[in-house]
């Protein structure tokens, strides 16, 4: 089967679905795309990888008509096209599945799929034909959804399926997926890959943007690597390796494994006892959870997203009030302390969501470098802020953490994801806390920065700090943790050492085995 497909791909190679010729795009002083050439063969899955800020998203936005290239040509099925807006892109058969879904949350699946293609002033006729067409698409591509379900009730993986159906409904032959697995569980990701393979075998062309090398190796036929606005290489996936791609992405050799020595745990520093936390709707998210974290060890909490890890972190950080149970730092109960008090007690928190919690994106970099610590007298006596001192310290951290561009006066939103995360990590680690709680330290972060952040976390451990780590990346949990606690449905289902194999942990995460 696959041999047949590959043969087919070779046969149509004179007629690529997409050809980009010399695409160039600048935003002010930032040269986001430099003379990009790219050929995507019809009926293949083509991966585009690169670190955050390498220019992948800009390139795809040009293809989808959000931006116009300063120069260069786009050819769709051999025909030069000027894509002025997304309508033109859709009309040329290009569909896009965005990283953050473009769905109306309180509309049904069917309503969302029709959106923008309602067909006439009265809905009734459009609805019935859309329903028929949706049914046909579902059957053809094995993409089952309930057309009358309301989006906000659906799991994330299903919402993504709706996005794909929406693109297909509009007649997309070329699908662009931007970091599609960022929000998915491993099982949902596997299902997505199956769907993508079906789509390819039916003759659709798929562009997959990601920074996860494993995904590239798993499902793409060809892969192009971008670095700092340039297309540095295109390889047949079968003829390359993870190591080669990583090196191409970063421009130097990278350590894919975390190097760390033996843990040297000391006394118990952070202790959680019979903790129960409810969310805003009153649903129990953390159910009678107890564990300890000692000085000099990293305790990882593994689990599929949405099993209470976020609420647990927020309760420890003082953001969410627990409904019962105790949290102790150094033996002192802190369950009712607010985040400001907890910082004074030596608890630092790298939050899961840097955009909404860890950073104020509209602030300049140096302003975020003191978020939460701004009342510290060293940043200004009395009521005033000492901007000189704050900026001087920000410059130090920028150098130490290699935050780019090295400009403390730049708006935080204008930094790439990896550099934004470094701003948060620098702020929390440089306070020299006693305990550090970390949520998704490397979500949406490029490889170079991941390596850096992991090294810092291990250094903190070796400096006898107590570290609690929550991540949905099982690899990350396994390579960093000294002990692994698995959460499922708000409960701790077991504890393992990092040597435990992935399958055992996976079964525990699914609530099947303990």
């Amino acid at each position, binding site marked *: 089967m696959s041999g047949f497909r590959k043969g087919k791909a070779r046969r149509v190679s004179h007629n690529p679905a997409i050809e980009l010729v010399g695409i160039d795009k600048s935003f002010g002083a930032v040269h986001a795309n430099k003379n990009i050439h790219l050929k995507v063969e019809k009926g293949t899955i083509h991966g585009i990888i690169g670190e955050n800020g390498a220019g992948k998203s800009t390139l795809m936005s040009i293809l989808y008509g959000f931006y116009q290239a300063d120069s260069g040509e786009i050819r769709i099925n051999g025909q030069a096209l000027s894509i002025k807006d997304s309508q033109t892109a859709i009309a040329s058969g290009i569909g896009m599945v965005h990283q953050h879904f473009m769905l109306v949350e309180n509309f049904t699946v069917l309503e969302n799929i029709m959106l923008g293609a309602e067909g006439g002033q009265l809905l009734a006729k459009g609805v019935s034909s859309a329903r028929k067409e949706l049914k046909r698409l579902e059957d053809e591509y094995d993409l089952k959804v309930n057309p009358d379900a309301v989006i906000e009730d659906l799991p994330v993986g299903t919402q993504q399926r709706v996005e794909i159906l929406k693109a297909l409904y509009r007649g997309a032959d070329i699908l662009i997926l931007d970091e599609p697995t960022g929000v998915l569980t491993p099982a949902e990701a596997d299902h997505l890959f199956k769907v993508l393979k079906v789509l390819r075998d039916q003759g659709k062309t798929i562009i997959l943007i990601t920074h996860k090398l494993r995904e590239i190796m798993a499902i793409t036929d060809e892969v192009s690597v971008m670095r700092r606005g340039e297309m540095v290489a295109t390889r047949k996936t079968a003829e390359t390796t993870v190591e080669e791609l990583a090196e191409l992405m970063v421009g130097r050799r990278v350590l894919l494994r975390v190097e760390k020595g033996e843990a040297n745990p000391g006394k118990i520093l952070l202790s959680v006892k019979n903790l129960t936390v409810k969310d805003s709707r009153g649903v129990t998210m953390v159910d009678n959870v107890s564990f300890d974290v000692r000085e000099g060890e990293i305790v990882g909490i593994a689990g599929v997203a949405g099993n209470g890890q976020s609420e647990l972190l927020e309760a420890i950080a003082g953001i969410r009030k627990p409904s019962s149970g105790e949290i102790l730092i150094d033996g002192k109960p802190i369950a009712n302390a607010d985040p400001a008090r907890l*910082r004074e007690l030596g608890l630092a928190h790298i939050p899961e969501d840097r955009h909404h*919690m860890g*950073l104020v994106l509209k*602030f300049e970099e140096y302003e975020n470098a003191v*978020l939460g610590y701004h009342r510290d007298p060293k940043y200004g006596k009395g009521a*005033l802020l000492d901007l000189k001192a704050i900026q001087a310290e920000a410059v130090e951290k920028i150098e130490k953490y290699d935050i780019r561009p090295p400009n403390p006066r730049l708006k935080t939103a204008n930094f790439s994801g990896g550099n934004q995360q470094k701003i948060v990590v620098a702020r929390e680690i440089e306070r020299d806390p006693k305990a550090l709680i970390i949520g998704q330290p490397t979500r949406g972060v490029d490889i170079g920065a991941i390596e850096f952040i992991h090294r810092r976390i291990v250094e903190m451990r070796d400096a006898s700090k107590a570290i609690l780590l929550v991540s949905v990346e099982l690899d990350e949990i396994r390579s960093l943790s000294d002990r692994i606690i698995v959460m499922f449905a708000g409960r701790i289902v077991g504890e393992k050492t990092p040597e435990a194999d992935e399958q055992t942990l996976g079964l525990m995460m699914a609530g099947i085995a303990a």
Partner: protein
Amino acid sequence: MSTASVPLPNWITYGLIPLLNLIVAFFISGLVVWWIGENPFTALRLLIEGALGRGDAIGFTLFYTTSFIFTGLSVAVAFHAGLFNIGSEGQAYIGGLGAALVALALDQYVPWYVTMPFAIMGAALFGAGWAFIPAWLQAKRGSHIVITTIMFNFIGAALMVYLLVNVLIVPGKMAPETRTFLPGGQLPKLDWLMALFGAKLGPAPFNVSFIIALVMCYLVWLLIWRTKLGYEMRTLGISPSAAVYAGIPYSRTVIIAMLISGGLAGMMALNPVMGASARLQVEFVGGAGFVGIAVSLMGRSHPVGIIFAALLFGILYQGGADLSFEMPNITREMIVVIQGLVILFAGALEYMFRPALVHVYQRFKRA
């Protein structure tokens, strides 16, 4: 969407774009004027002459400007904390009570410069007090600040009429107003300042409040961009979830921001009450609180922007009054239409020309 992230130099963002908006607003106003059968160029000349042509005209313009600076700052401070204070009108009205009580108590005993600091405090305290209840309701009960401050405008207005008609009225007089303050309760005119520029102030009530307003501009700038409290307010205003993460207390920050906002609105009363009429009258605020919303919007909630926006609205107010006097076809309501157009283009549609300018700028830069 596609051009919003492209950076433009400051002279375009803060100079050219507002200027273009203003020109378009005046152009459409001109069409309206032409449509009702008057010459738009004559109307524009009359408006500008009426606002800036003579010493007393400038005095009146700056008098209105002063009021608008106070209310503009009031709206801006709340806005930085993510609060839309629609209640500056009522807070200014109640602030007038505070100023008047101080003036009535002290004017017989001390000169104006002794009364002034107490009057500033009185006006600010009363204005802040009027903002406190909506602030408390927002902070502790989640009652929406827009709704409560609007309602408090009405309550404030009714309360002031009651007080002026039944309590503060001079016995035996018909007018619902307090007695006239003695010079010890008045803020002197700034005729010396006008004289420096060779202009005569005449009867215009341009007074010391203007200087107080400029001082407040500086203090608001200091508060918002140089203090820890201002930092917390801005964090809360931009990202409430980041504020929670940072341990910034929501209730306290909301209440303090609204107290400062109400205090600034209250201080607006110094200008008409102690600087112009020398007594407390009904409806002395005259919509300045609402103009403050437009001023803050146009001035991008920055004190320097607010000064310019307040000046623009001062010109429209004073020049508009003169224009409707000279051209009977152009009524007061027409002036309101013109002001509305300015608000529409400079406030609500402020980014309308941005995409086009981005294209022109990029082409220009490449060339």
